[in-house]
């Protein structure tokens, strides 16, 4: 661990956190959405993809990612814009997940959830490089879906969680108290100390 003694949430009751931020983070930490958009199969499939995209083997309680994707799709509130070659957000997710599963069936004769970790990674790497069966990817482009939608969304959710902030030594919430020491190798007492 790079920042062994640092926990962003340790600042919960300090001037680095305000009420608004506490409210937002309490919801993120404790009010995990139920499945509303995906089918059970899609949910399980996405869960096994996300386990490779943002692997968290060291965490007894992994940062939840799939519930927040489901929540975004259920409320249909995303970035708003989409590339010309991409259907609207909800359709893109359904089509993209189905295509990943089909790729798995074509290559391995079984669904993605049944693959071992190494095969998952090989398959996802091929999708990332557009080395896919074009007949399967007619609705969404392989790399465009995997990188610009799936990985971008999953990484965005992971690094919106306080546990991820602690992991990388990010200062986290900083209102009303911001920072005083700004220069090279300078650190306020309320910032993460790096193990050197």
């Amino acid at each position, binding site marked *: 661990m*790079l920042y062994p003694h640092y926990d962003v949430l340790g600042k919960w009751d300090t001037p*680095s*956190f*305000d009420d*608004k*931020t506490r*409210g*937002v*983070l309490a919801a*993120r930490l404790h009010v995990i959405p139920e499945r509303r958009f995906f089918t059970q199969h899609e949910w399980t499939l996405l869960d096994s993809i996300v386990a*490779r*995209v*943002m*692997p968290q083997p060291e965490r007894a309680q992994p940062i939840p990612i799939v519930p927040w994707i489901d929540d975004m799709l259920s409320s249909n*509130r*995303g*970035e*708003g*814009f*989409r*590339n*010309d070659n991409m259907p*609207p957000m909800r359709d893109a997710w359904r089509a993209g997940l189905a295509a990943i599963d089909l790729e798995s069936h074509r290559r391995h004769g079984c669904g993605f959830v049944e693959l071992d970790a190494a095969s998952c*990674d090989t398959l*996802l790497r091929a999708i*990332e490089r557009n080395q896919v069966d074009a007949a399967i990817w007619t609705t969404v482009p392989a790399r465009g879906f995997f*990188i*610009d939608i799936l*990985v*971008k969304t*999953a*990484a*965005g*959710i*992971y*690094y*919106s969680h306080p546990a*991820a*902030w602690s*992991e*990388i*030594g*990010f*200062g986290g*919430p*900083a*209102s*009303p108290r*911001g*920072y*005083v020491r*700004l*220069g*090279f*190798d*300078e*650190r306020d007492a309320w*910032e*993460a100390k*790096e193990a050197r």
Partner: protein
Amino acid sequence: MSAEALRAKQGRAPDVFQSGGWMPMREFGHDEPVDFAIVGSGAGGATLACKLAEAGFSVVVFEAGPFWRPLDDFASDELEQQKLYWTDARVTAGDNPIALGGNNSGRGVGGSTVHFSMISLRFRPEWFKCRSQLGYGFDWPVSYEEMVPYYEEAEQALKISGPVNYPWGPPRRRYPYREHEMNASGLVLARGAEKMGIRWASTPLATVSAPRGKSPPCVYRGFCNFGCSTNAKQSALIVWIPRALKAGAEVRDLAMVGRIEMDGNGRSGQAIGVHYHRNEAWHFQRAKNVVVAGYAIETPRLLLNSACPQFPQGLANSSGLVGTHLTTHAGPGVWATFDEEIRWYKGPPNMAVTEHWNYVDQGKDFHGAYAFMSQGPLPRAWAQLMATQRHLWGDTLRAEMLKYNHMAGLVPVAETEPRAQNRVEVIDETDQYGLRIPRVVFSYSDNDKRLQRHAVRFMGDMLAAAGGRDLWTSDDTSHLMGTCRMGDDPVSSVVNADGRSWDIPNLWICDGSLFPTCGGVNPSLTIQALACRIGDRIKTLARRGEI
């Protein structure tokens, strides 16, 4: 969402400086033709609303998004603050489709100034006469000399914090507030610039370095691109809007304008008001003048969606130029790892700047210019950049993210050429209001690519000279400009130097769409200066009975 409740009503509007506070607001009836209906409340709309209301005109501002109180509504959190962006359906296309959403849009009173980086730079004087003096692009119908008093007015109104001696451009008055202390991310730029023998400066920023009224000095919390929760940032929401309200303007929040209505007889060729959606219903506000200030996508979209038998190509579009000549600022980034702890999450994200290549023309194999700044992405944005640009995921992404506190980078605000084929159009797909949605088409020209190669090479050399290692590059853009350009004649422009439509004399435009060329600096200060100028011009024209 409760956060999206309508607030500006019943004679009062939120007081942005007070938790739960209110201030009185004048209200106008639908059938009472107001002097000016202004569509949009960002850098263009809010500034002009303030100027016109203070000049005694009756003004109603329509804003599609909510009326925030920063002290109550803004969390220190990237994800929550996505609510500041325009996320209605849009399609992006072309060889180099522009990322929209958070990249270059705002939804809410104050527009994108609520989450902008606060960089407040003037245009290089020659850019106003780009074609005649530098041999590319188009001339503006105003000169730098005409703009100077309005740049000064905007800089004073925003109390820009900047260096006593700014190294580029003609001699100028000093900035109203002193410069900010530099963060390590900016010191990397400074070190690199000194090694390369070029000048650098503390970026003039619209966040105060000392108390100003009810604004406390900036505390360097670093969430500037996600809304300022302390009101140190001098956004349109806290600078121009309260002034406009005090002067008698009305602001209607969560009010989406869908169409500008023309005189039914079609004889006068005048706009008579706007149809807008608020509180689950469509309404019509009569107006003597309509100002469109929705930024470079929504402005042409509204003009095109307002097509009528008399103006089948859309309003103000006899030139066929509405929506065309879209420009953006290319922002290819160069990033490096440093031995020192940088912790670039502290302070405004772009504290150091060099305008070297805005003012030096020698040694360029391209037309145009660029400034570049130090950077400070927060973790979510940083992870997403590495995922989409380097295709990192899995253990590799997590390992790279561990270097977060040791990273620094440089990103330019790089000029692109105004070209007819880069454009905003409307397509048949409709949004939640039943309005046709915009499709944005953008491709870089060869010149745009040469300019970016130059920038990437130079910034890379500089970052390495500053001690960076493991350099890599990324592609991005910022800002949108130019889709309703101003000019000297009705054939080659949409509006004149006053933002007034050549075709419809009581229809005006006041935002970044006006820019004939985009220069190598962030547009917000120039938009606000233009709005101050347009406000003055309207006052003069009205006095002469020419409105």
